[in-house]
């Protein structure tokens, strides 16, 4: 058999893809962000609106679906790329705005900058995303293509030099891939930060003829969506990383373990696998070489614990997702008892860059011990929510105040929760901690997979700790006694505290139990479950004490410790808004015309508070839940 050079085959593919993309870029294109975040904000409707308007006007323009550009606060969004203009990104779209844009920009020549968020290329007229404070800190690497390429079209990825790392690697030896990844000190992005290269080497040396590569896309953290966005926006990047890993360790078969709750991600990845296979980038003799590797999707059924490596493998084998004690590590004995590499979506996504640009280049980004970038889904009480990528070593303050543009509504910062239910809550004083695996760990939080929730003065830290513990308690697989029963008991204690019950010993007991659960659990779910409790106890001890000793919730959140009250001097007798807004008919009009809340009927839903017109602002929350004395006098 003649030996076609992978590099040659690839260059042909690249030329074709580039030619096609260039011809497409010759005409006006509307790129609508239709990752899950966009779709839930109505992007599919926006896409239809564009298509309809364009057709009605008889214009020559393509409407293309792209992934997530990362600026989730402005969804639904679209980019309009018209020849002769720099591509411009528009946010907060609705049918009216679509009509306007089609009429003025697509049909006319006015880019309507008043509605634009930013341009995507440098130009003399309008700033780009890089010109905003956020741009100064962001360094897009694995999110580079997200929102710019059509995830359903492999050519769109290839035209941006996609799969070039694979072609390069296949012309060399597998060891070169491994050496490069090892030299780059790429640390696993699933949260623990174990060096990927060392894992791969162990697997390579694990002997055995059969080996497996598994991508962990079982993103279960509530409030984290980085992995989903990458899979929906740039699936081929992850596939390429997996093929490179398989080549390095000599695996023939790989799986992507994706949550079944992510139907769009499953669908995009399946499409990507099929397209890659059609082009000989997957399957037998990849790019004409002697290397065979194929990929399949396994849909995870929604169990947080399955993010743990051994639990995930058990789940793939058709068992309950319970973790096993290690060693043996997966790298020597994993799926079907064979050496297995399990890495996070993001870890694989870095590999093509490292192969293409080299380990030295990679190490220049980030810090010495944690090279590269960190991807976060920035949510909660922050102005610019979204998907961000910053170099490791950026401080939390920069991330929240510069990239996220601070807190909305002039509220006071209280805490930032990093790493999901396994992470910790850090206060203002810890904001100058640089973001890297070790510094965060020392501060009591963890890198986790990258969920970052900002909280302000209106958030009760006891309630937050309770919320996360409720989640881990529910997701505990039940194997270890401390995790199964200890978290339950901790939750009971926290429930008592949020009700104002508990005594001087309660907090000591809670802390002791938290430490026991941490020490007495096999896997990281149990080991890290107490983190939210331990960090809030450390940094927000006063809030716990206020609940227990004064029966008061300082943030006015815990519903058993607050009541809603209409201040008589502020209430307008002529307005009836609160009465209508109450779902339980607890608000009534008194004889003197003022409104009053029947505390027996009130369910504390805050509806009246939101409904009361701002010019009166008569409804307030009180904690501890005692009616003011003058009020009681009047009632008598």
């Amino acid at each position: 058999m003649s030996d076609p050079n992978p590099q040659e085959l690839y260059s042909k593919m690249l030329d074709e893809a580039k030619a096609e993309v260039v011809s497409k870029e010759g005409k006006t294109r509307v790129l609508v962000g239709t990752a899950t975040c966009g779709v839930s904000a109505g992007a599919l409707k926006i896409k239809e609106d564009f298509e309809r308007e364009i057709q009605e006007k008889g214009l020559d323009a393509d409407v293309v679906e792209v992934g997530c550009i990362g600026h989730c606060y402005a969804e639904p969004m679209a980019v309009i790329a018209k020849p002769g203009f720099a591509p411009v990104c528009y946010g907060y779209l609705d049918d009216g705005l679509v009509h306007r844009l089609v009429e003025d920009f697509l049909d006319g020549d006015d880019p309507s900058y008043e509605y634009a968020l930013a341009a995507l290329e440098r130009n003399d007229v309008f700033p780009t995303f890089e010109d905003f404070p956020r741009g100064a800190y962001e360094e897009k690497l694995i999110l580079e293509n997200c929102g710019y390429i059509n995830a359903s079209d492999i050519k769109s990825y290839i035209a941006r030099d996609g799969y070039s790392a694979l072609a390069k690697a296949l012309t060399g030896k597998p060891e070169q891939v491994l050496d490069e990844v090892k030299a780059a000190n790429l640390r696993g992005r699933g949260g623990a930060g174990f060096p990927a290269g060392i894992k791969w080497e162990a697997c390579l040396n694990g002997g055995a003829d059969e080996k497996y590569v598994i991508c962990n896309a079982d993103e279960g953290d509530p409030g984290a969506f980085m992995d989903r966005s990458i899979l929906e926006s740039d699936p081929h990047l992850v596939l390429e990383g997996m093929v490179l890993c398989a080549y390095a360790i000599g695996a023939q078969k790989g799986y992507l373990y994706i949550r079944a709750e992510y139907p769009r991600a499953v669908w995009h990845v399946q499409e990507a696998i099929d397209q890659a296979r059609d082009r000989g980038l997957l399957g037998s003799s990849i790019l004409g070489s002697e290397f065979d590797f194929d990929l399949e999707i396994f849909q995870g059924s929604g169990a947080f614990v399955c993010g743990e490596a051994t639990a995930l493998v058990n789940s793939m084998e058709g068992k309950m997702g319970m973790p096993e004690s290690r060693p043996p590590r997966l790298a020597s004995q994993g799926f079907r008892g064979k050496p297995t590499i399990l890495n996070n979506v993001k870890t694989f996504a870095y590999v093509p860059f490292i192969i293409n640009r080299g380990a030295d280049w990679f190490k220049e980004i980030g810090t010495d011990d944690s090279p590269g970038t960190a991807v976060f889904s920035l949510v909660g009480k922050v102005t610019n929510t979204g998907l961000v990528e910053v170099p490791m070593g950026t401080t939390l303050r920069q991330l929240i105040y510069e990239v996220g543009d601070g807190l909305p509504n002039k509220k006071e910062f209280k805490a930032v929760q990093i790493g999901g239910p396994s992470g910790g809550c850090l206060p203002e004083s810890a904001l100058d901690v640089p973001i890297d695996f070790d510094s965060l760990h020392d501060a009591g939080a963890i890198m986790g997979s990258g969920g970052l929730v900002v909280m302000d003065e209106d958030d009760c830290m006891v309630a937050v700790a309770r919320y996360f513990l409720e989640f881990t308690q529910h997701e505990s697989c039940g194997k270890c006694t401390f995790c199964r029963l200890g978290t339950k008991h901790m939750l009971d204690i926290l429930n008592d505290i949020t009700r104002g019950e508990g005594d001087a010993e309660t907090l000591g007991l809670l802390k002791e139990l938290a430490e026991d659960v941490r020490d007495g659990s096999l896997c990281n779910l149990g080991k890290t479950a107490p983190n939210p409790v331990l960090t809030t106890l450390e940094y927000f001890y006063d809030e716990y004490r206020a609940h227990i000793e004064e029966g008061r919730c300082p943030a006015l959140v815990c519903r058993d410790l607050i009541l809603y009250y209409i201040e008589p001097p502020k209430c307008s007798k002529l307005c009836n808004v609160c009465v209508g807004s109450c779902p339980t008919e607890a608000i009534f009009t008194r004889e003197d015309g003022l409104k009053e809340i029947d505390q027996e009927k009130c369910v504390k839903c805050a509806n009246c508070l939101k409904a009361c017109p701002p010019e009166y602002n008569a409804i307030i929350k009180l904690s501890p839940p005692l009616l003011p004395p003058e009020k009681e006098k009047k009632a008598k």
Partner: protein
Amino acid sequence: MQLKEGEKEQILSCVKDVLNKSSKKREDLIPILQKVQAKLGYLPALAMEIISEGTGVSGADVYGLATFYNQFRLIPPGDHQIKVCLGTACYMVGGDITLESFERRMEIKEGETTSDRRYSLERVACVGCCTMAPVVVVDDEVEGKVTPTRVDGIMLALKNGNDQTKDKQDQEQEDGEQQ
């Protein structure tokens, strides 16, 4: 929940169909359960029994899987499914209050279906549009910034809108029975 008329036959044929197309190995068990649920909307006890027989995995193990994973549901979904998001962002702006409002209006608890199988209510971890929190997914439509008043509105719209046809059918059926 009681099986409706004709439902048993439907379950039997569906499960047999799925089993025939699979390798019946233990590794295939979760995909089998997923496919059956995709077709029936839930995993009835009968289906789990047949799957157990078909794959040779004990009934306890099949039930164990079905209850271990959050994806599987053991009671049928309602005609209208309401999912309240209780991800971090939604929880922080009162997602639990929204859930409570639905529970109050529908007179069922989270995870249940009304006895007429019209509505079911569940909580989900995160639907991925944290900026619109608190979020509720009604059938496939995402509703953002939901307040208890909006909950009443949603319930009213469901009752008045889509259910008119259903009420009519029920009425006709009743009329038929009376005759």
